[in-house]
């Protein structure tokens, strides 16, 4: 299988400009700047069926085409490197192993949308990635791939790297914009969408790191080549971060049509110590959990959606037969309660409440009515909030209770019964 995103990962000093240039680095950029119009670049990306790899899977070319050309305001590209979704660690790999692929993708994107300033919002905990990306940025400036008159053409671009401060919600694109503007990371009301009113009130494209890393290869090898790699509506490969109870956890670049079973058993070496599989989260903690018998699902955006879960960030978390699902649910709920930004009342109050109930059940203080109430409470959060965080609480926690109900029931049965005190 042909590697795209990880093609340089095994080279020594893969993060250096020298290494990148040896393999035809920045040639795609030269082609774009010297021989393509903005519309041609966007058209090429559209044809490639590249879909946003941050989690939502929105067609990238279409996103770029939403930037209003007539708007006299400056346009911005913001790249989301706030990889905070638990179980996801692929952007970190790209930033550390092939930062120039990201930079080249960004410069091409800026040319396509008419931006002269770009930002990389990088997760605050990623200090090593930040350091490497900063080094790459410096190299790119020195080699005139950034700054005034790039590669001797009339195109100019400046780039700023901005580390976050550790809030999961700042990975939500409008919260990220707020944070980048120096405010508290609260998601914005939509519409207007960032393509019209984004960073500092100007038209803005927000793309994920991994998406950016795919841009230059598409230009170099052509949209048809890329589109053919994936499924019908979903071009290319993507990176899957595999963690949990597998023999070989890590980041794997695989085509989008692959099944979850193949990833776990053929690539990640199967379940740890030969144990049986109990459950898998296929796309970061926000994605509804799958039971062992559901893992023949294909890993593209549309197939996972049909299976009642989502591709999300490609963070696959594998749980073997020894896993306590009540504890797993409680830990997921604790994460959401901790990371809810607190703006909307259902999510702010609901995420904490759900965690307290699950914690109580886990600690052996559960009551039969908890299981009756939990789905209703969880459902009241999703769909009733400004951003998708609320939906994530509903989908994630709801799926544990729905699919592993017997484990919750058993836990409550064995609990210290205090029905006598609280009927």
């Amino acid at each position, binding site marked *: 299988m042909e590697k795209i995103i990880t093609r340089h990962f095994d080279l020594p000093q893969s993060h250096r400009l020298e290494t990148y240039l040896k393999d035809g680095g920045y040639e795609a950029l030269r082609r774009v700047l010297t021989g393509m119009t903005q519309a041609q670049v966007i058209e090429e990306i559209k044809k490639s069926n590249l879909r946003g790899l941050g989690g939502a899977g929105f067609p990238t070319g279409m996103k770029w085409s939403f930037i209003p050309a007539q708007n006299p305001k400056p346009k911005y590209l913001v790249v989301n490197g706030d990889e905070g979704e638990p179980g996801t660690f692929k952007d970190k790999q790209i930033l550390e192993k092939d930062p120039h692929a990201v930079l080249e993708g960004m410069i091409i994107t800026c040319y396509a949308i008419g931006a002269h300033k770009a930002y990389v919002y990088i997760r605050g905990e990623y200090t090593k990635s930040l350091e490497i990306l900063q080094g790459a940025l410096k190299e790119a400036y020195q080699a005139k791939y950034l700054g005034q008159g790039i590669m001797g053409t009339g195109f100019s671009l400046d780039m700023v790297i901005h580390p976050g401060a550790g809030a999961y919600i700042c990975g939500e694109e409008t919260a990220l914009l707020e944070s980048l503007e120096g405010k508290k990371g609260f998601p914005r009301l939509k519409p207007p969408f960032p393509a019209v009113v984004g960073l500092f009130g100007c038209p803005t494209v927000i793309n994920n790191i991994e998406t950016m890393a795919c841009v230059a290869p598409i230009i170099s090898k052509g949209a048809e080549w890329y589109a053919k790699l994936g499924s019908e509506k979903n071009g290319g490969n993507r990176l899957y971060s595999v963690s949990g109870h597998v023999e070989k956890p890590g980041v794997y670049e695989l085509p989008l049509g692959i099944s979850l079973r193949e990833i776990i058993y053929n690539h990640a070496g199967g379940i740890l110590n030969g144990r049986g599989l109990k459950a898998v989260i296929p796309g970061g903690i926000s994605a509804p959990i799958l039971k062992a018998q559901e893992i023949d699902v294909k890993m593209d955006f549309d197939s996972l959606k049909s299976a009642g879960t989502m591709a999300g960030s490609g963070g696959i978390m594998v749980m073997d037969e020894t896993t306590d699902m009540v504890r797993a649910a409680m830990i997921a709920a604790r994460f959401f*309660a*901790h990371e809810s930004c*607190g*703006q909307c*009342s259902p999510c702010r109050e609901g*995420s904490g409440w759900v965690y307290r*109930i699950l914690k109580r059940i886990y600690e052996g203080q559960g009551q039969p*009515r908890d299981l009756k109430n939990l789905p209703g409470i969880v459902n009241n959060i999703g769909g*009733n909030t400004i951003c998708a965080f609320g939906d994530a609480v509903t989908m994630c926690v709801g799926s544990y209770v729905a699919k592993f109900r017997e484990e919750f029931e058993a836990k409550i049965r064995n609990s210290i019964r205090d029905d006598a005190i609280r009927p």
Partner: protein
Amino acid sequence: MPKLSIDGKQLEVPEGETIIRAAKRVGISIPHYCWHPALPVAGNCRICMVEVEKQPKPQIACYTPVTDGMVVKTNSPKVLEVRRAVLEFLLVNHPLDCPVCDQAGECKLQDYYMDHGQYDSRLADMKVKKEKKAFAIGPTVMLDQERCILCTRCVRFTEHITHTHEFGVFNRGDHSVLDLYPGKKLDNNYSGNVVDICPVGALTDRDFRFKCRVWYLEKTRSICPGCSMGCNITVEWDKSRPHQFKHARVMRLKPRHNPDVNSYWMCDKGRYNYHFIDENRILEPQFKNDVMSWDKAIEVVADTIRPIIQANRADKIGVLASAQLTNEDLFLVRQLFKETGAQVDFRVPEKPGEGDEFLLKADRNPNTAGALKIIGTDVQAEEILKKARQGAFEVLYVFGADLVKLLGTEVVGEIAGKVKLFVYQGSNINETCLWAHLNLPSSVYAEKDGTLTNCQQKVQRLWPAFLPLGEAKADWEILSLISEKLGKPLGYKNSSAVFDALAKKVPGFAGMSYEKISDSGMVLS
């Protein structure tokens, strides 16, 4: 203009209007916490969600603009379910201390719970404890973080209305708290407004706290007399429990919405300037420190004035009127004194206050514009006082101005010795009362029916909340009694009749009447 239907009612509204505002037009009130008509939309409380046909999810009415052909349901089972869910979430960590909460009775959590909640509690867990419970955040307001539902109305008020940026929301999730930014105090001249806009008991008024349960309060429309802006207010009072607070009747003032004058706001200077209504009042007429009946007191004035007027020496009467008086009061001053030739002015030589760029004006008189029209400026108040000191007057008639504060004891003592009759007509006791020969108790604005003209030349109506304290009478009424005693009955039955006569006679007021002025006021022509 888009046409839509809300709960089956058809309406046409301007382009871009939100559902919540459109619904208001047809009398449908959609529950809301964070939305306030004068503040930017936050969209965070989520209780205003309504069902919009063809939309998969309920939408927030405060942010969603109407579109042509839109069909909105504000009371469908789905909407009621969402509302109940949001209420349940808001109450998860809200203390149930309504019996000791000052907001009880005017709390939106209580109100909507009674309308839409009424579920059995599903909460079996501990509530989140927040650090700060009931602490002063400035001279006027107390904050209780646990009661706060984080609607951010106060944050947006201090951001967009006062631009003082005192408030912020700190931390995340259900540990979020409303607090002041480090080193800040809520100490701006509009701080009291955050209590008005707080939908729950998180921000309460230090002046009003625990004085009176709100359901005892009666409410009367009025105009703030604190400066020439004439902010529309409501006087909130209680006479049912005279054992409380030294018989005070007025418990608090609240701003009353008027889009042309004060929007939804009023300043703290005006808001807390009401204690004089019930404190330190002149309760009966006093002649040389002896209580006197109204009949006798009127007789004293009439008997002194009559020979002066008959001898055509009305210029021996000096009158210091006041722009604190209503248009009606000033019209009687004009009829009784000005038109007979007395020396009259209203521009008490006092230092102007400090104004700001919002509502508070440097001119602390509520009726300067009216007095200019009714009394005019052909005589100087300073001249009147100078002449009084020189002994040029036989009578000096002062309305409400504290001359001792302005001129000092010596000068006022000198004046009192030089005139035959020194009348002080006012509502509250001050040092000038000690020097005046005759003190006539007049009513305060909250006891008056009348009109005031603000700095925008707007004639605005005030209504009497209750009867005057003691034997006090409205200023125009006292003057009309004197006129009658002088053998010139004016025949006004009430202030409305005075105003009708004024409208006929004083240019600018032509065509006005109480009915036409109503709630919104009328601008002088």
